[in-house]
């Protein structure tokens, strides 16, 4: 309770943020009224990207352990919808998908996050491929099929489902940033040895954060799955979706929660445009952008903005006021 109070009403800044977030959600909520029927579909996919990038940041952005498992959790959600969607309503399946993603991530975390270093990245990288091949094997062996039809929902229904996930996620992120848990993650990211020696249960904190970050990916995977019509393991587990969230988050900048959101929006719009206009070049451009972003703007767009502001202040006053970091 105390946490909710400080997180949302603690300072003028947090109050403004709360009003802004609620206003944005309300506008999004009402938007289908004013848009053509294609737009909710576009927006649903865009928000799904935002959810992937923001939820990735919860764990990897804070701790510096790069997870390449987004595609695994997203695909898991998609496949779960394909399995159960015919009989169970989408929102229920989404909750279930989130729970499964949480559980899988928890298990993976327990095994790999005891270890420092690159093992976690390697293992999460293989996870999507492992699930893809294993599910394919099960399907072919026991069900004599490669994929499954998915019950379609209206564009609006999918949009609202994804929007709810986004709304929950954003409040969770705001709460986490102010909570003991979020601070513990900050400590781990900045110096894990020290964090452990001042009493942070680092392994448990990491595992839990990783599991929490997996759940939204599972939920939106289930929702977006319904708009595809047919899902097979190759479609569900697309490695690109493991790297996109990383890129979008870095592209936006990870110092605030708005970075990954802005990064995802810009990327999605760019991707949509490139795929339509330059289908052949799209992936090559994507790769080049990735390299350029890492090399030239490691702090993301928000980092560039910070830099620009600092420079302006220097120009006006002759010395640096802003924090250039």
């Amino acid at each position, binding site marked *: 309770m105390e946490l909710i109070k400080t997180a949302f009403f603690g300072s003028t800044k947090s109050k403004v943020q709360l009003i802004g977030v609620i206003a944005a959600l309300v506008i999004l909520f009402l938007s289908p009224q004013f848009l053509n029927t294609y737009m909710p579909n576009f927006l649903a996919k865009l928000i799904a990207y935002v959810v992937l990038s923001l939820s990735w940041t919860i764990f990897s952005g804070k701790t510096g352990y*790069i997870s390449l498992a987004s595609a695994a959790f997203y695909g898991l959600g998609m496949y779960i919808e394909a399995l159960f969607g015919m009989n169970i309503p989408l929102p229920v399946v989404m909750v279930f998908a989130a729970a499964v993603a949480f559980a899988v991530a928890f298990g993976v975390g327990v095994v790999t996050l005891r270890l420092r270093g690159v093992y976690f990245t390697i293992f999460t990288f293989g996870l999507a491929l492992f699930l893809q091949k294993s599910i394919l094997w099960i399907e072919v062996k026991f069900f004599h099929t490669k994929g499954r039809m998915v019950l379609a929902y209206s564009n609006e229904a999918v949009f609202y489902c994804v929007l709810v996930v986004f709304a929950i996620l954003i409040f969770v992120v705001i709460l986490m940033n102010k909570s003991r848990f979020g601070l513990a993650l900050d400590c781990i990211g900045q110096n894990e040895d020290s964090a452990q020696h001042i009493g942070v249960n680092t392994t448990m904190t990491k595992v839990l954060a990783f599991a929490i970050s997996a759940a939204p990916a599972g939920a939106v995977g289930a929702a977006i799955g319904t708009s595809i019509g047919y899902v097979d393991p190759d479609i569900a587990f697309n490695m690109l979706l493991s790297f996109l969230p990383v890129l979008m988050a870095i592209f936006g900048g990870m110092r605030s929660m708005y970075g990954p959101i802005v990064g995802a929006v810009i990327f999605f719009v760019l991707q949509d445009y490139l795929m339509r206009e330059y289908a052949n070049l799209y992936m090559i451009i994507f790769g080049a952008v990735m390299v350029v972003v890492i090399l030239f703007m490691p702090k993301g767009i928000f980092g560039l903005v910070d830099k620009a502001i600092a420079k302006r202040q220097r120009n006006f006053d002759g010395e640096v006021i802003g924090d250039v970091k």
Partner: protein
Amino acid sequence: MTLFLTVLINGCILGSVYALVALGLNTQYGVAHILNIAHGEFIILSAFITMTLYAGAGLHPLVALAVAGPIVFAISFVLHRTLYKRVKDMSANIGEFEGNAILVAFGIYFIVQNLMRDKWGSATSGYQFMAFPVRIGPADIAANNLFVLLWAVVICVVYYLFLMRTRTGKAIRAAAQDAGAAALLGVKINTIMALCFAIGGLLAAFAGVLISMKEPFTTVSGMNYTTIAFIVVVLGGLGNVKGAILGGFILGIVGYAVSTYDTGMMFAVFYLIVLVLLIVRPKGLLGR
């Protein structure tokens, strides 16, 4: 008995290629700290170069070793000198560098894969080479496979001797153990890192040439080899040369044994091996 022998020989054939693939990745990670996700793409690139030379100009596939090898070596060297060097300079510590390097490697993966797709399409490619069986005891083994085994072993042995016997090899081993100390002793660490990244590329190219002789490939199958390399490297111990070779052969034999039962299960079994290993012995089989 026949089955056992077949599995053993074919497993070793598969394993020799895995070892070669992993050896390249291991050299890149062990010294330059780059977990090269684009590794498999250079394997496939070399496979296509080999096919083009063989089908187009009628050259023996082994000639491709002398063509694809230097090409990938040069590309890798330049990539390290330009991109990775810059990433290294701007990263605060080794952990941050490893993270950024993975992402840059992924960008390169996308560029290379899609350039190849533009050039060669996405259909399965391959060519016929030494397609006749050889009888070993009671087992029939494909001649091209034995040829691949022979050359993979030769390359592994030559590389091992290079590391152990030559001056450069010793510098590489020193850098792998402690880059800072090696630098103090006069090893040009940036050159060694670029060189190791390039040697990793060279080994990938050799692996690609050999792979093209024995099995079909597509422009998108590179990731499979990269993943295998990751698994072998974890199995043998990160940065451990002997471990990569041993791990490659073990995985090859296990993989072939599983695939005689059901090919679809192969990757799942590999992944479970890694899972168990990380729980029981995270340093890898030969890790210190």
